[in-house]
């Protein structure tokens, strides 16, 4: 048994694409959800929670994409 299921290059590109695609999609998806809530009343607790959660999601998505770029640049 060895560590190599695939070559190191394939592994790195798998990590890159998987992370980049998921994080990028996540960023856009939560940004859209936040945008759709813009006219809702923020004093309603659930709306407030959603806005906060989607903002965190946007931040997490951005971190994911930045990490991938940092690895390759």
């Amino acid at each position, binding site marked *: 048994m060895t560590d190599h299921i695939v070559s190191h290059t394939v592994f790195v590109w798998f990590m890159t694409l998987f992370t980049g695609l998921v994080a990028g999609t996540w960023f856009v998806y939560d940004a859209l959800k936040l945008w759709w809530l813009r006219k809702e009343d923020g004093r309603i607790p659930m709306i407030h929670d*959603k806005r906060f959660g989607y903002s965190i*999601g946007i931040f997490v998505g951005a971190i994911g994409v930045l990490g*991938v770029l940092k690895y390759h640049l």
Partner: protein
Amino acid sequence: MGAPAASAEGSAPARVVGKLNPANAVTASRFLLLPPFLWAVDSGYHQWATLFVLICGLLDKVDGLVAKIFNCRSVFGELFDAITDGICYGFCLIILAAYGWVPVIPVIAMITLGLANSGLRMIYAKRAGRATNYKSYAMERLVAYTAYLIGFGTGQFEVDFYFWLYPPLMIVVVLHDAKRMLIDAVPGANA
């Protein structure tokens, strides 16, 4: 018939389901991945460890899907899923830190904050007077981030960058959720 399952803020249906159901079986099956994960890390097999983490993360998504297909969503299922997340991800993080694959301080911060969050949820359930789970949209995203962190740790992919950015984000979310669970009114709380 017992009281129907009910949860805070409309996150679960008002339907009684047994604890032994397909969705909970999928959730429980995630524990089976912990021994192989430990073996992979102990052997220094980064790719195998990443594969086991990936399967664990995938099963976390599949259990929700199975619950929808078999119509067996329940408050217990939600709590069991959250507990399983905590145990599986906590175990993986501790193992990775113990073997020096990831920095220790962010892992300690994550686990401490995770435990604090679990304590807050217990207090929230006590305030509500029933088994309930506070639905935190922000914490859901951080839990997904945690799964990713383990993958970054096993794959040695920008480990420091991803790990050191996590604790500040979690502090903000735990503080926000603490206010919601400890101070704000609980929907439908028993008098």
